[in-house]
């Protein structure tokens, strides 16, 4: 279960990443942020974001035409 949810629907690059970074900043290590986005570019971007920041991308998928991600704060 996610500890926090971020709805970035309708936002375009780089806003989903910036909002996610901000949300993670207010969370504890080990907590999970659930992100919903509509920007198709966010799929690759969240992979890259996780890789570079050390936060773990637990899941990435599509749900009802939107992109959903779970990121665990490192």
């Amino acid at each position, binding site marked *: 279960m996610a500890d926090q949810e971020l709805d970035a629907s*309708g*936002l*375009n690059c*780089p*806003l989903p990443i*910036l909002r996610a970074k901000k949300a993670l900043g207010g969370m504890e290590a080990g907590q999970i942020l659930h992100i919903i986005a509509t*920007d198709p570019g966010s799929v690759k971007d969240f992979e890259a974001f996780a890789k570079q*920041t050390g936060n773990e991308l637990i899941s990435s998928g599509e749900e009802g035409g939107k992109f959903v991600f779970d990121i665990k704060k490192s």
Partner: protein
Amino acid sequence: MSDEKKLAIIATKGSLDWAYPPFILASTAAALGYETQIFFTFYGLQLLRKRLALEVTPLGNPGMPMPMGMDKWFPVLGTTLPGMQAMMTMMMKKKMADKGVASIDDLRSLCLEAEVKFVACQMTVDLFDMDTADFISDVEYGGAATFFEFAGETDICLYI
């Protein structure tokens, strides 16, 4: 030297479209943990105004997609008509808002929030007799040597 990655950007352009790359890249780099600095010089100084009045122009830009197929039936000379630039700017801003693209104002604030450092070229300020009171306050003023002090230690350095 710290092991934090660093990014330096030189922003030289003062149009609405070209205002995006420096602020998008700087804000994203900051989110990825880069220490980031933007050096604003020449027309790039327009991006530092408190009241941004950036515009786009189709003039001299054959790559700019025009709405309603205007590029097909509108001669280049038509784009010089008075009011054309204002109209294109209005249309571009509307398109960006519709597509969820952040405004330059917002991206600039996000950069500052993420502690991206802004340095304005003192020489250009003097050259164009610009009033620094028109600029946002989060700006330092310096020259080429100031830029290299940071740029010399960066992992990525971009000229935009």
